[in-house]
């Protein structure tokens, strides 16, 4: 991270996106599709109509929260690869509140969202605790906890939350739903929900927390240099745990939003949704800043949702869009754009003299 300096991160990101799109185009051409029509379909299909725009925002919402989750952990020097599991547990907890409790509209949703966030935080506590106290690498614990979450969720759905072994749970109470009429109507009855407001709010919270508060000062110090943090009398272990709790809370909100806003129920899952993993890419492309995360999540939202339309409109399989995503990540991670810029500058100088 240290070699990515501030001024060039935006440029780096933009160049990487451009290169990723070019690589995707080449891949499409090689596979015998027309790249221009494909990209046209992609952007048209995700942005031009109210319904599609609403669905794109709906797709973007959990990506923002997952990206924030990964980013804040990164800032403290931790790699939270457990967003996926934290989302699943949050989803499950929010769903239980949504089904089993009986609260007035609004309050029910707030309680369910908070329970989801807290559940995510608690699921992230263990890897944070083991890292801080026993020095166990968080990545290993996170991956294990992802699988525990996935299968635990499936077992509970099948044996407790459904009648007679169905594949999906009943719907949550409408009181707990995050969908609101005016948003649904504005976007032509798409599944957009208040989760986007929560996500944007959390981006602001992350900014405020990291760059305006004592806790944020400590988290960043621990992330950049734990030895100096220790010298400054900070409690490094506590900060590691707190960072994982906040990270898990963001992930939890992502999961709660999915169940309370998008789907309204959960089904047995045979595999991860991939949103948590995309969060890693979102954070990377967004340089671990809240504003960067918002924009890169939006890009990923457009690509993900638009790729489905691309299939209808241009008969291009959506898998090809994963090539674009992978290429973008590759270009950012390898800082290819930085190297390109250097070469261009040197060439220009060589010509001048």
């Amino acid at each position, binding site marked *: 991270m240290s070699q990515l300096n501030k001024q060039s991160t935006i440029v780096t990101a933009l160049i990487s996106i451009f290169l990723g799109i070019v690589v995707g185009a080449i891949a499409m051409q090689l596979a015998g599709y027309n790249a221009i029509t494909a990209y046209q379909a992609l952007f048209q299909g995700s942005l031009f109509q109210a319904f599609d725009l609403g669905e794109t925002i709906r797709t973007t919402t959990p990506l923002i929260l997952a990206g924030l989750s990964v980013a804040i952990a990164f800032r403290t020097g931790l790699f939270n690869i457990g967003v996926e599991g934290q989302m699943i547990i949050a989803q499950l907890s929010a769903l239980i509140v949504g089904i089993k409790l009986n609260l007035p509209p609004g309050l029910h949703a707030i309680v369910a969202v908070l329970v989801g966030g807290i559940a995510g935080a608690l699921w992230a506590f263990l890897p944070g605790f083991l890292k801080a106290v026993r020095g166990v690498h968080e990545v290993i614990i996170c991956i294990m906890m992802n699988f525990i979450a996935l299968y635990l969720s499936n077992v509970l759905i099948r044996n407790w939350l459904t009648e007679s072994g169905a594949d999906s749970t009943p719907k949550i109470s409408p009181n707990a739903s995050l969908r609101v009429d005016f948003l649904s109507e504005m976007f032509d009855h798409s599944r957009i929900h208040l989760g986007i407001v929560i996500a944007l709010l959390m981006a602001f919270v992350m900014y405020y927390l990291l760059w305006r508060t004592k806790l944020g000062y400590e988290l960043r110090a621990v992330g950049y*240099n734990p030895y100096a943090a*220790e*010298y*400054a009398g*900070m409690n490094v272990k506590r900060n590691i745990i707190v960072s994982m709790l906040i990270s898990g809370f963001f992930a939890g909100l992502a999961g709660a939003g999915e169940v309370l806003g998008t789907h309204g129920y959960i089904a047995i899952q045979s595999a991860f949704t991939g949103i948590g993993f995309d969060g890693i890419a979102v954070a990377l492309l967004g340089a671990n800043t809240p504003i960067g995360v918002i924009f890169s999540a939006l890009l990923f939202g457009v690509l993900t949702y638009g790729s489905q339309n691309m299939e209808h409109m241009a008969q291009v399989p959506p898998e090809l869009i994963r090539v674009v995503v992978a290429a973008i990540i590759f270009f950012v991670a390898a800082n290819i754009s930085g190297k390109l810029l250097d070469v261009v500058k040197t060439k220009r100088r060589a010509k001048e003299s």
Partner: protein
Amino acid sequence: MNAVEMIGITKRFPGIVANDNIHLTVKKGEIHALLGENGAGKSTLMNILFGLYQPDEGEIRIHEKKVTITGPTMANKLGIGMVHQHFMLVQPFTVTENIILGDERTSSGFIDYKKAEQEIQKLSDQYGLKVNPRAKIADISVGMQQRVEILKTLYRGAEIIIFDEPTAVLTPQEIDELMAIMRNLVKEGKTIIFITHKLKEIMSVCDRVTIIRRGKVIDTVNVADTNENQLAALMVGREVSFEVIKEEAKPTRTVLEVKNLVVEDQRGVPVVNGLDLEVRAGEIVGIAGVDGNGQSELIEAITGLMPIKQGKISLNGKNVAHLKADKGTRARRITEAGVGHIPEDRHKRGLVLDFGINENMVLQNYYQSPFSKGWTIQYDEVNKYANRLIEEFDVRTPSHETLARSLSGGNQQKAIIAREIDRNPDLLIAAQPTRGLDVGAIEFIHRRIVEHRDKGKAVLLVSFELDEILKLSDRIAVIYEGKIIGWVDPKTTTEEELGLLMAGRAKKEGQ
């Protein structure tokens, strides 16, 4: 013939002109010194010559031919090699593997290790480097690793070799050997550019010296026609005193008392082993000793960064050895009890390099008023405070938001010293406070430390530089294998006496 001409070189970084219309001419076969304070722009100029940076203005001629150096590979082709301050070696690889890395010469598709090894052996013998091509990097000393870097440049056919502060990491013995190697290199027709801020080294090996101050060339002089005082004045821009001016100490009450302290390292070996020490208000106590005799652990134990096995540490009469960390950590409780700490490794402990200077200035008290209110940090107050310290301690930085990483070592150190001294601690612990700094910065820091003593505070100084210990201390304690094995008076002792003590020969009882 001129090996290198750099004509009108200008290089700007955000907020600073690192090289300002620099002219440098290096003759073939000479050892040419680049002398300047930390941050003067020496490394920048040489990074331009080595192709790592592109100049904003100016031109370069190598062997009287105009060139544009686009990168290190191009520099290698032009016969320019560079030995960086931080080595770029792969630890688990052998010497040979490291040297051929990036310049693998193959025969029928395979790397010919045998041949490479022979060639490296030959080069090593020719220049008296005494390097074993088969040794693993991880197993050889820092001095040897540096020679591997030299061999690397020679293997790539360097005619002009740049050394960026090569002696900063070496022991005195190794420095002498390096000087001999440099002489060998020029005898064989190489040209050397030698960056340093150590005047003795220039006087002993260099032919000419170019002095750079704040990005500008001040002068180029023949070493034979100058002396250390004149060079120091040219470098700093004023007369520099090599002596520390201080009055007789007037020590009063005891501030720090360490009794029978035992500190174990991670393997459970007692590295501080029954140590007693006393520092009084109004005096500077210097700890002399060879590196690795428990100095670092002693300091980390006093400052609460390392657990104590046994013994007593009291500050102003209060035992702090087993302070409970009920509110904050033990390190914080000790800081609050009146301890300032200039750590031996400024990059590891002293600074968060990716924080701005402003955030670094409040590292010890960010949580206190006025820097914080409730749960927020008051950045207006932090910036105001940082600006005052930057001014008062002459920290040269483009702004208070500049990352600590991009300041020169001297200015980083000044920032730490500003932070620690301004809190006016009863006990100031200064570990290697001037390591790697130039004479101007050293003078400044020494003056600040003496001023702190004169305010009636206690100072504990740890340094591997005998010179520094002798000049600064009012009393000297010699540490050996985790114990203080003798006290000497800096006014009456000799380097010989100190040297013997440091080697473990205890003084006779009763002295």
